[in-house]
C-alpha cells in the first residue's frame, strides 16, 4: 500500500509577520515606504518581454517608475575563463552562443580578432572576405528581423512577428546549406572558413534578397504609420546624443540617437571599403528612431549582399579555384588528402590540432559592428596556442547599463517598448 503524507507549505504570510515583529522600531521607520506609496515590482528573470533572463527590480509610484535596478548574470557560463583553457580554434563554437541570434557575425568577429593577433587579418583571400561579409549581413538581417518581431509583439502587434519569422526561416535554411547547422554555425576558422559556398547557394541568396525586401516593406506598412505603434514608441525612451556616448552605447542604439558611428565605416575591416552602403541615423533617439534605423539597416544589408553576390571572386561555383584560406599550413588545417599522403602536412595538422596556432606574445583589441553593436575581443597572449586572457566586450551588456538612467520617469507599460527597442541578447550580456 502506498504511503501518503501531507505536503508541507511554506507559511509565507506567517514568516513575513514574524520578520516584521523582529524588526526594531528604527528599522520599521526605514521600511515605512515599502508599506506606503512606493511599490517594488520584480520583473523577470522569466518574463516574455525581457527576451531571455533579464531581471529588473522596479520601484513604482503608482504606474510611474521611480527607480530601476537591472540584475544580469542568470546566463553566465564563464566563457572568458573557458577560453583561457583551450586553443583559439576550439573557442569558435563558444562564440555561437554569445549573441545566439547572429552566430555567423560572432564567428567572423572572433576569427578576425585572432587573425589580427597573428598579423594575417589583411592577408585574407578576397573570396573569403566576401563570404564573411555576406555572413555578417545575413546575420544582421536575421537578428534585426527577430528584434523587430518581438519588439512589435511586446507592444501588441502580433502580425509582424509572424511576418518576420517567415523570412528568418529562409535565413536559417541558407545557414544550414552553408554551414551544416541552422543555429550553432561555427563557420569561420582562424585564417579562413570551414568550407566554400555550396552549389546554388548564391542563387538562393539572391532570391532571398528579393523576397526579404518585400517582407520588410510589408512589415513597414503595418507599423511605420500605425497610430498605436507611433503612440507607443514616439518620444518614449529618449536617449540624447551625449548620454548615449557617455553610456557607451553602440550599434543601432547609438545611431538611433543621431551619432554616425559604424565600425564598418570608421574602422573598416574585410572588404567593406569596396562596398557601397549608407549608415542610417536617427534624430530624436526615441524607441521609434531605433526602430526606423533597424528597418533601414536591413535594406542596406540587402544592398551589400547584392553587391557581394555580383562581385564575389570566383563566382557561384568557384571555377577559377579562388582560395578561401590563407596559404599557411601553420595556421589553417591542410587539405585532408595531403594530410594523409604527405609528411609536412601531417605534422602541421598534428601541431595545429593538439597545440593550436602559435600566436606571438602581445595584445590586440578588435571590434566588429555586429547587429547588436560593437562586439570586441581583447586578447592578451603570452605566446602559444591559448590566450592568457580573452575579454569579450559584449554590446548587450553595455547597452543594458543605461537602464537605471533611462527607465525612471516612464510608465510601466513603456518598459516592454524600451526593452524591445534596445534589442539585447542575454547570452551575450552574461557570457
Amino acid at each position, binding site marked *: 500500500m502506498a504511503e501518503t503524507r501531507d505536503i508541507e507549505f511554506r507559511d509565507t504570510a506567517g514568516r513575513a509577520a514574524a520578520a516584521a515583529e523582529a524588526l526594531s522600531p528604527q528599522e520599521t521607520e526605514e521600511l515605512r515606504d515599502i508599506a506606503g506609496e512606493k511599490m517594488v515590482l520584480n520583473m523577470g528573470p522569466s518574463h516574455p518581454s525581457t527576451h531571455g533572463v533579464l531581471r529588473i527590480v522596479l520601484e513604482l509610484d503608482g504606474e510611474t517608475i521611480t527607480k530601476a535596478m537591472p540584475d544580469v*548574470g542568470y546566463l553566465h557560463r564563464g566563457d572568458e*575563463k573557458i577560453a583561457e*583553457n583551450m586553443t583559439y580554434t576550439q573557442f569558435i563554437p563558444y562564440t555561437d552562443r554569445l549573441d545566439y541570434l547572429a552566430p555567423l557575425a560572432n564567428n567572423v568577429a572572433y576569427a578576425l580578432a585572432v587573425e589580427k593577433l597573428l*598579423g594575417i587579418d589583411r592577408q585574407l583571400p578576397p573570396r573569403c572576405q566576401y563570404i564573411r561579409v555576406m555572413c555578417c549581413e545575413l546575420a544582421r538581417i536575421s537578428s534585426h528581423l527577430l528584434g523587430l518581431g518581438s519588439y512589435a509583439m511586446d507592444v501588441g502587434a502580433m502580425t509582424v512577428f509572424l511576418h518576420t519569422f517567415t523570412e528568418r526561416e529562409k535565413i536559417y535554411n541558407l545557414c544550414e546549406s552553408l554551414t551544416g547547422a541552422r543555429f550553432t554555425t561555427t563557420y569561420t576558422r582562424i585564417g579562413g572558413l570551414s568550407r566554400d559556398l555550396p552549389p546554388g547557394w548564391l542563387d538562393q541568396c539572391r532570391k532571398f534578397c528579393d523576397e526579404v525586401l518585400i517582407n520588410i516593406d510589408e512589415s513597414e506598412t503595418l507599423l511605420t504609420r500605425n497610430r498605436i505603434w507611433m503612440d507607443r514608441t514616439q518620444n518614449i525612451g529618449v536617449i540624447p546624443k551625449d548620454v548615449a556616448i557617455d553610456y557607451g552605447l553602440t550599434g543601432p542604439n547609438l545611431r538611433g540617437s543621431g*551619432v554616425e558611428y559604424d565600425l564598418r565605416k570608421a574602422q573598416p575591416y574585410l572588404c567593406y571599403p569596396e562596398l557601397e552602403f549608407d549608415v542610417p541615423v536617427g534624430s530624436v533617439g526615441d524607441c521609434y528612431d531605433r526602430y526606423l534605423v533597424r528597418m533601414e539597416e536591413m535594406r542596406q544589408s540587402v544592398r551589400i549582399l547584392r553587391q557581394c553576390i555580383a562581385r564575389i571572386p570566383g563566382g557561384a561555383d568557384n571555377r577559377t579555384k579562388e582560395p578561401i584560406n590563407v596559404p599557411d599550413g601553420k595556421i589553417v588545417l591542410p587539405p585532408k588528402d595531403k594530410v594523409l599522403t604527405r609528411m609536412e602536412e601531417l605534422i602541421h595538422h598534428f601541431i595545429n590540432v593538439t597545440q593550436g596556432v602559435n600566436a606571438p*606574445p602581445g595584445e*590586440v*583589441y578588435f*571590434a566588429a559592428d555586429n547587429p547588436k553593436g560593437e562586439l570586441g575581443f581583447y586578447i592578451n597572449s603570452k605566446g602559444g596556442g591559448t590566450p592568457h586572457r580573452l575579454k569579450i566586450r559584449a554590446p548587450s*551588456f553595455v547597452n543594458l547599463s543605461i537602464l537605471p538612467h533611462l527607465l525612471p520617469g516612464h510608465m510601466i507599460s513603456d518598459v516592454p517598448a524600451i526593452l524591445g527597442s534596445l534589442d539585447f541578447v542575454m547570452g551575450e550580456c552574461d557570457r
Partner: protein
Amino acid sequence: MNPVDHARKLRERFGELFSEPIEFRGEISLQLIDSERIADVCTFAKQDLGFNYLVDISSLDNYGDDPRFTVVYHLYGLGHHCYLRIKTSVSEEKCEVPTVTGVWRTANWHEREIYDMMGIRFRGHPDLRRILMWEGYPYFPLRKDFPLAGKSSNVPEVAFTEPAPMAGGPFTTIAGGKDAVAREPRVRIPETDSLELNARVERRQDIKDAHGENFGPGPIEPKK
C-alpha cells in the same frame, strides 16, 4: 591626429608617470605607473584629447608576479577615430584603483564586472556590487588560482554551486601528468598543483628563449 600623437601629449602632460608607448599590430599601449592617477589621466584624455567614448575596461591576472593585477582601459574618440589603450597595475595586497565612473558613466558596469570576476575594488564607485555572480558568492572566478571546474559554494536559500562534471569540454591539457586525470585542467588546483606550476615556469622559459630576456614579467618560483 593619430594615436602616437595622443600618447605623446599624455606623456607631455603626465611626464614620468607613463612608460614608453608600445606599438603592436597598429595599436598603442601606454603603461601608467601610478594607478592612483588613473582618474586624472582619463579626465585629461576625455576633456583635452577628445577620447569621449570608453570602449571597455578589462583586467589581467599575472598570477605569480608582482604587481599581480593589471587593469586595461580602451579609449576611443568619436571625433578623431583613434583607439588608445592605457594599462595600470595594482598589487594583490592593495587591490584597489580609483573609479573612472565620474569620467564616463559606462565605466559603472565594467568596473562592477571586474570587481566580481577579479576582485579588484574601485574606490569611489557608486554601487560596487557583484554583477554576474550572485550577491554573497565567495570567490573571484577569473583569477588564475581559481580552478576551471569551480569550487563548491553554498549560500543557503540563495544559490549553490558544485564543481563542474568531468564530461565534455575540449580543454587543452598540460603534458607531463602520469595519467589523463592528472593532465585534465578541471581537476587541477592551481595553487597546490606542481604540474601546473612547472608548466608555467617552462612556458615562461620558452617565451624567454624565443623572445629574449626583456619580454614579459619576471620568473616565478614553484610554491612548496
